[in-house]
């Protein structure tokens, strides 16, 4: 989207352009974090907010929209119980269904990280954002994001080593 075009566009045209360009990314972001039904709701919520705050939307609106999506998803109340069930499905079933050659270990390792670490890794690895864009989604400085992604990558690697090691290092069950 070109800045010059934006200035001469009507609000409805601006919204249409923003939607055409970014709705897919918003939907993908939501689908990676919640169920299809909730993702569909989230897309509508985000676009309603975008419509009402069109003047606040930056020229390159993707990071702004993903930040809005993140907050909308956070407000879809989900207890840790359901999240646990969701993580279990994600780490055990879904990859096999999708690709047929699932790397379960990396999903297990991801599920074992803190929520904040997971989010920064997913923004880079799954959303394909640069550090600057991902920082904008989280509302932090690129420098801070750089520190967080560095730590999260190290934690993922450690967790992955533990998971990979654990797969070949079973021990008999004991009385719990």
């Amino acid at each position, binding site marked *: 989207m070109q800045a010059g075009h934006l200035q001469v566009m009507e609000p409805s045209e601006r919204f249409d352009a923003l939607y055409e360009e970014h*709705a897919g990314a918003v939907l993908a972001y939501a689908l990676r974090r919640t169920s299809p039904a909730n993702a569909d709701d989230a897309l509508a919520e985000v676009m309603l907010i975008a419509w009402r705050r069109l003047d606040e939307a930056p020229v390159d609106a993707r990071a702004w929209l993903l930040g809005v999506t993140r907050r909308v998803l956070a407000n879809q109340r989900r207890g840790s*119980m359901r999240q646990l069930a969701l993580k279990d499905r994600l780490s055990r079933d879904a990859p096999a269904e999708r*690709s047929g050659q699932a790397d379960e*270990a990396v999903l297990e390792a991801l599920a*074992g990280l803190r929520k904040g670490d997971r989010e920064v890794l997913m923004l880079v690895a*799954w959303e394909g954002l640069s550090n600057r864009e991902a920082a904008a989604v989280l509302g932090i400085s690129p420098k801070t994001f750089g520190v967080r992604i560095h730590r999260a990558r190290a934690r993922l690697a450690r967790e992955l080593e533990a998971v990979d090691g654990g797969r070949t290092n079973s021990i008999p069950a004991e009385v*719990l």
Partner: protein
Amino acid sequence: MDADALERLRAVNPVPDTPVPPAVGQMRARLEARRPARGRFQRRRWLFALAPVAGAAVVFALAGAGDHRGFDVLAAVVQATEPGAGVFHVDAEESYSGKRGVTRFQYWQTIRPRRERMLVTESYPGKATRRIERAIAPGETWHYWSSGAPASILRSRSTRHEVAVFDAAQIHQAYRRGELRLLGTTRVEGRSAYRLRVVNPEPHAPPVDILVATGTFAPIEDINYRWTRDGRLQPGWILRYRAYEELELNPANVALTRMAPHPGATLRPGPTP
């Protein structure tokens, strides 16, 4: 190694290709349905102006007509859901409004020392029943078992405090923030209940209603609302409590917080679930 881990993560992107969203015209129609018309909004401004008066009248009528004259119902609910010294027990079933699948949550917890056990049983039509069990023992030792991988019990250590979020946490937080409202009384399966509403301050975010028993103030039901395509609020996830109670602190009840035996399963280190 870090780069390798990130590459492996990229390779398991659950949505590798950008999905196709609804057509923009379809979305605009959906949003228009939720956008109040000018006239409707102007009329609503009068309603908003009257809302505090009407709200006070409802609460006044409620306090005057019920058994709790002059009683702060919200404070009583907060007090009733404070963690106690016994074994906190919840048994609840969750389903999506109008759908047949059910997820059952059974939960036992002690605060000092921290022990926690949760069973999740998912039953959806046409799919095998799935069970997950997680227990946290003193010393921050976590155990995790899933019917998806029944041969393993994963063990880890973590100081993370991501305890199950039942109503108590949500009620207390909303009360502190002034986001908890008393809407009135209702009946649930023959039981008298107060209807509380957790008002989400985020614009356009749907609310959550929590129904609590009028006698014990214990939660009976959660209703998580969602917006429909034509701009109406309708129930989405509904959580119904079979039990929400504090059990006596004795060896038999404390044993309920321990991981159940899973014959044939091997214990191995794993990530913290």
